[in-house]
């Protein structure tokens, strides 16, 4: 049925093209029939003559060739026309349009813009569909396998605003080995901002972002700034000499690292509304050790129906082999991206318009909005794989959840506010199963765990619904649980337990240890109230108190740095990190220690912890503190960074 509607829609929207193609086909059929009759009659004539013993060489060959050309030429022209119209630009199966040059990009933009604002009468709503924003609870760390702290067998690396602090692991202690400062900038506004680092035994990689052109024009709007990301590889075995440098254009949206292979998704906004000289300056590029490679217009793919406002580049850098590659999409700036070790998935909205030639033009120009999912394969190189269309519109911030070999995507109806869709798609983006559910309340967050989706309502009096999508053909609501069973913030403590936190009033949070063995029936094992004011901190209700917490289920340790979600109201040398032992699932022993912290205005304001030779190492951008594990308040040594 959908196919028939699609065909009818295509016929309606492309009447002239269809008419031309059909007439050409009719003419072609008539000529071909004529040609066939002519061929048969002359063949019979020659046979007849042979029968009549009138054997001679005929002059028919020339005529046959001429006639063949007459038939073949229009056929070739028709074929050429069809190839030119459909083949070169649009891939309907993949819903992509390959750009040819700058003018084709501008044409796409203008065409979209003209259609989008084609109404002569005021619209009921300015934008037909507003994406819904739902928080995701699943991931706390910003980037996968990339952090501000990294270690190998010999060193601990701490990335700060001012540079890289290298701590050497000596026999029984830690010593500050050296500091590598970030490269100097022309002004403070153009200073490099650390994004993260990762390492192995031989290589250390630092990722930082920067913005140029701000020294002279510090008030340049964000979208007009020239964003870049710098990736520097150091040789750990050779005095931290620089091995490779990569500069990629764009602002970081997401990145991850797997086995020293870095994947970065970047946006380069095209400020059509501000005007510009040429689009060429916005083309995404990679500069590898001074050699620049720019992706050209004809290598960029436009995802059909997306708001054309942005180049999204997926950069893949193999650190050990020192190679870099990228694939660029012409995509809506407001997309969701999910990076997996071998692929990237982009979720965005695709608009379909009514005929612009509509003489009355009083209707909303948007006929429908659908969600597009685009897969980019990442292997030896980075290459576009496929785009698929899904019913419904994107839900802001919802990533693609991977369950076995299927992708799970939540989006919602563009027409009915309370209708949500849960799509199950195979990894090749070929088979789609859609489960439709009516949720008549506001959703605060959605959490995916194993084969379950937890829909957490905004109102505390409504229960949390748990949907089971293990059978892609028959998704069902398995259970409803009390709202309190899944707190506002959660992090994994062990395979069996998660730790959750709720903001209470009066500067307090409630921490819960939750057993998730029965995923559709979680149970609270123990709770603890933490009063920030008691420790001279003022709780910021908008921050995640679990952001920097350190969990070690083997040692039954839970460390809460209060500065993650709190502002210090007293001396900065007062104790600031609380450590619990979760013995017998109860928050028994509580130790408060002081770790070096930065001024509140400085960033990154991170806390991490690690175990080194039976000692607990608390790491912040301001320094390190070593305590024994048995006596957590027994500080062995402190290293403050200069």
């Amino acid at each position, binding site marked *: 049925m959908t196919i028939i509607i699609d065909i009818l829609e295509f016929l309606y929207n492309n009447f002239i093209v269809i008419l031309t193609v059909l007439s050409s086909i009719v003419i072609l059929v008539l000529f071909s029939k004529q040609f066939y009759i002519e061929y048969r009659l*002359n063949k*019979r004539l020659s*046979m007849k003559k*042979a*029968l009549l013993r009138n054997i001679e060489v005929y*002059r028919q060959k020339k005529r046959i060739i001429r006639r063949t050309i007459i038939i073949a030429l229009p056929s070739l022209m028709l074929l050429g026309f069809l190839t030119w119209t459909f083949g070169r630009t649009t891939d309907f199966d993949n819903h992509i349009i390959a750009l040819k040059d700058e003018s084709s990009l501008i044409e796409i933009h203008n065409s979209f813009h003209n259609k989008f604002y084609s109404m002569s009468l005021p619209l009921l709503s300015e934008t037909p569909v507003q994406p819904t924003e739902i928080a995701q609870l699943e991931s706390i760390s910003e980037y996968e396998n990339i952090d501000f702290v990294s270690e190998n067998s010999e060193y601990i690396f701490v990335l700060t605003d001012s540079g890289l602090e290298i701590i050497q692991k000596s026999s029984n202690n830690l010593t500050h080995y050296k500091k590598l400062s970030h490269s100097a900038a022309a002004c403070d506004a153009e200073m490099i901002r650390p994004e993260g680092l990762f390492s192995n035994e031989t290589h250390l990689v630092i990722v930082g972002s920067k913005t140029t052109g701000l020294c002279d024009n510090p008030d340049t709007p964000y979208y007009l700034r020239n964003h870049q990301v710098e990736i520097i590889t150091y040789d750990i075995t050779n005095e931290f000499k620089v091995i490779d440098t990569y500069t990629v254009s764009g602002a970081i949206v997401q990145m991850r690292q797997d086995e020293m292979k870095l994947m970065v998704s970047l946006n380069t906004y095209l400020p059509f509304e501000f005007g510009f000289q040429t689009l060429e300056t916005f083309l995404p590029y990679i500069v590898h050790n001074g050699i620049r490679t720019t992706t050209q217009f004809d290598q960029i793919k436009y995802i059909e129906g997306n708001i054309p406002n942005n180049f999204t580049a997926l950069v893949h850098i193999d650190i050990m082999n020192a190679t870099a590659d990228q694939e660029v999409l012409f995509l809506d700036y407001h997309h969701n991206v999910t990076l997996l070790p071998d692929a990237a998935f982009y979720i965005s909205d695709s608009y379909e318009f009514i005929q612009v030639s509509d003489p009355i033009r009083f209707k909303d120009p948007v006929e429908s909005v659908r969600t597009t999912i685009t897969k980019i394969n990442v292997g030896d190189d980075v290459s576009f794989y496929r785009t698929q269309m899904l019913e419904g519109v994107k839900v802001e911030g919802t990533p693609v959840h991977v369950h076995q070999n299927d992708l799970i995507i939540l989006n919602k109806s563009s027409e009915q506010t309370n209708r949500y869709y849960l799509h199950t798609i195979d990894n090749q983006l070929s088979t789609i199963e859609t489960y439709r559910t009516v949720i008549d309340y506001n959703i605060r967050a959605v959490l995916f765990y194993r084969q379950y989706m937890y829909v957490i309502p905004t109102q505390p009096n409504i229960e949390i619904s748990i949907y089971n999508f293990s059978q892609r053909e028959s998704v069902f609501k398995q259970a409803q649980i009390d709202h309190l069973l899944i707190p506002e913030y959660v992090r994994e403590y062990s395979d069996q337990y998660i730790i959750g936190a709720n903001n209470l009033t009066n500067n307090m949070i409630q921490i819960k240890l939750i057993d998730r063995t029965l995923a559709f029936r979680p149970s609270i094992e123990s709770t603890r109230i933490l009063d920030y004011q008691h420790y001279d901190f003022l709780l910021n209700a908008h921050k995640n108190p679990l952001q920097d917490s350190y969990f070690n289920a083997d040692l039954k340790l839970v460390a809460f740095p209060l500065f993650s979600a709190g502002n210090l109201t007293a001396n900065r040398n007062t104790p600031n990190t609380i450590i619990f032992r979760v013995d017998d699932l109860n928050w028994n022993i509580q130790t408060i220690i002081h770790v070096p912290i930065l001024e509140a205005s400085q960033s990154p304001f991170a806390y991490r912890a690690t175990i080194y030779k039976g000692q607990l190492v608390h790491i912040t951008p301001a320094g390190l503190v070593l305590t024994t594990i048995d006596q957590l308040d027994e500080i062995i040594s402190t290293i403050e960074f200069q």
Partner: protein
Amino acid sequence: MFKLKAPKHQRARLREKLKIVDSANYEYVLTTDKSLVEDDKINIVFDESETAKIVRLLDAIVKGEDVYITAYNPQGQKHIESRRIHYFIIESDEVVAVLNQAKFDVKMKLYEVEELLQDKHYIRVSKYALVNINKIDYIKPALNSKLLLLMKNGDEVEVNRRYYKAFKKTLRI
């Protein structure tokens, strides 16, 4: 008219030498093998070494005795072999025999000429024309269910819609 019946290894070679095409309604069986003769047909049994003689014999059978047409032009009366005439056509109520480069009046009605030449591979293509099949160079179909015959002398003769089917039937072997 003919059917060649010969062992497989000889067949293609003999067909080439004899310049014949097998027809569905044949009267003559040509064979090099006595056992292949058909009782209800005229059988010609020959040895392959006699092929040249057989070719002449077949020419004689097909072409037979030529019919002569008495025709006139300003220089006088002439007897013309029918196989030399490309077609007959009615011009100003007169039947004209058209040869390669010349035209002659024929003091007969067109149907009389048709009757006279009925075994001589002439075919009626319209109320006004009778065409020698052997002199048709090329057949060109038109979009309006008519045919245009391009004659070997460069003339064009139209096959009328009414004679279209009969013309096609005649071309069948």
